[in-house]
């Protein structure tokens, strides 16, 4: 469905951020993109949604294809029309607009008024809390409510592929669980493919079908999520697990550092 083919991204003509990233999202799948801060996850998402151009970034090499069409030169609004919606990091809202207006803006690229109404009800079904606040000015929402609103707004474009940038950021564990439950539900019911960028590797791996790990602008590891979960390196560096029941010592810590051998 979506394929990134060895793409290279440069910001402001000098800063090389992605150094040849390839990944693909199959239809109906949930794919997780993991990695530490600054690994280039968000940049990869912006390259897909076309928002890179608004930040002086450019795909200088490789290609991005969505359902057989090259999209790396297209504008963000064209890409939204084609069916890719990015839910940006930090949950940006139109703060002066009400909750309902925010949701309506999400359907801006569509012209089918009747189905928009129905989809809006769907969004309220997924996020009942938004229905109760529909006339509230959205700038005053809490973090969790904001996350639900930006996802609801994204859904209104009827995306075939939804790019979620750190949905769990700064939310309580209970809320993270709830958000990811809904992500899974959306994936099943709307048949929306989902690419989720996460720091919270545990939840991301538990709902995704496939996962990629990024570091320093490269994909260093990928595979089915169930397999990655068992991977020793992933366990140690992303899931924070160590061999249970054994005593830890600084010697082991050093040993772990050496084990992370995918680093260039």
């Amino acid at each position, binding site marked *: 469905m979506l394929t990134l083919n060895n793409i290279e991204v440069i910001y402001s003509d000098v800063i090389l951020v992605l150094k040849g990233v390839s990944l693909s999202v199959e239809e109906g799948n949930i794919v997780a993109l993991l990695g530490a801060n600054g690994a280039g996850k968000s940049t990869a998402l912006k390259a897909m949604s076309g928002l890179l151009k608004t930040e002086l970034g450019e795909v200088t090499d490789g290609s991005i294809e969505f359902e057989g069409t090259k999209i790396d030169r297209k504008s963000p609004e064209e890409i939204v029309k084609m069916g890719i*919606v990015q839910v940006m990091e930090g949950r940006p809202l139109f703060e002066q607009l009400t909750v309902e207006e925010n949701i309506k803006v999400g359907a*801006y690229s569509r012209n089918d008024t009747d189905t928009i109404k129905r989809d809006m009800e769907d969004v309220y079904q997924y996020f009942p809390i938004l229905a109760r606040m529909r006339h509230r000015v959205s700038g005053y929402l809490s973090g969790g409510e904001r996350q639900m609103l930006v996802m609801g707004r994204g859904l209104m474009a009827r995306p075939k592929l939804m790019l979620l940038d750190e949905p769990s950021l700064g939310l309580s564990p209970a809320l993270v669980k709830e958000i990811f439950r809904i992500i899974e539900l959306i994936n099943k019911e709307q048949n929306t493919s989902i690419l989720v960028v996460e720091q919270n590797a545990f939840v991301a791996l538990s709902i995704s079908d496939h996962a990629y790990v990024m570091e320093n602008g490269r994909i260093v590891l990928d595979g089915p999520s169930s397999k990655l979960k068992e991977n020793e390196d992933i366990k140690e560096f992303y899931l924070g697990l160590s061999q249970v029941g054994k005593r830890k010592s600084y010697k082991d810590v050093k040993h772990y550092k050496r084990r992370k051998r995918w680093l260039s």
Partner: protein
Amino acid sequence: MTGFLQQAITGLMIGSLYALVAASIVLVYKATHVVSLAHGQLVAFGALFFWLFLGGLGLPFWMGLIPAFFLTALIGLLIERLTLRPLIGQPLIAAFLMTFAIFIALEGVFVLYLKGQTRALPTFLPEGNLDISGLSIPINQLISFFVAILLFAAVSLIFKYTKLGLGMRATAEDHRLAQSTGITVRNIFSYIWILSAVVAAIAGIATANVMDIYYMLPYIGINGLIVAICGGLDSLLGALVVGLLLGVVENVGAAYLDPIVGGGVKDVVGYVVLLLVLLIKPYGLFGLVRIERI
């Protein structure tokens, strides 16, 4: 007391013109965050085009109105396309200065065409006065006053309830976010300039209804800017209220203070009001309250 009321009502009529000019500036600011100085010229050119068709070619009212709107909108669109679009992403001060350059350039054209003469619109609205218990209101001014009010209502409704209005409000808040939801921000900019140019043309025609078209006409844009800033720059309601208020204050102030200081109060009052408002409320009377979460 009747004297005061008479002055106040005349002020209201003038104020509605200021409000319209301010509205055209506010519209552009709302969606693009560019404070436009060029709108005084749009107002003047709107009036001039209308005169060309009505006085120059002798066309009937409607036949003059539509092409005047069209041509003014075209100027607005060209300003946006040719001068402001290349500046997207640059500091806003660049766009602001660009509108000033446009003001000067268009003023050259305007003065060159008029050659120091004045042009008077032929009467196109019913004449006569409406007399209510000793107060006399010119009917043509009353009509333009209500047109202004209706226009405000219409534009506000467009902003509040239509899809285009929603897109404009969304764009005003965050261009990048608007793009990410599928709004073509560039188109929104074009639409807003067209809409604002038409409002400016209406303001120009309404102004030319009460005074001749001469080289000072574009400077009503300064009054419009004062009103827009006092009203909060992004508030249509602010533009309306402050516009009417400024008209009244100017007129009443001139009537009572001119004999004492020997004239010229009208030209100063606006700036005094602006100074006071900005001292007390730096965001303007109806400016948007920024939502800040802690």
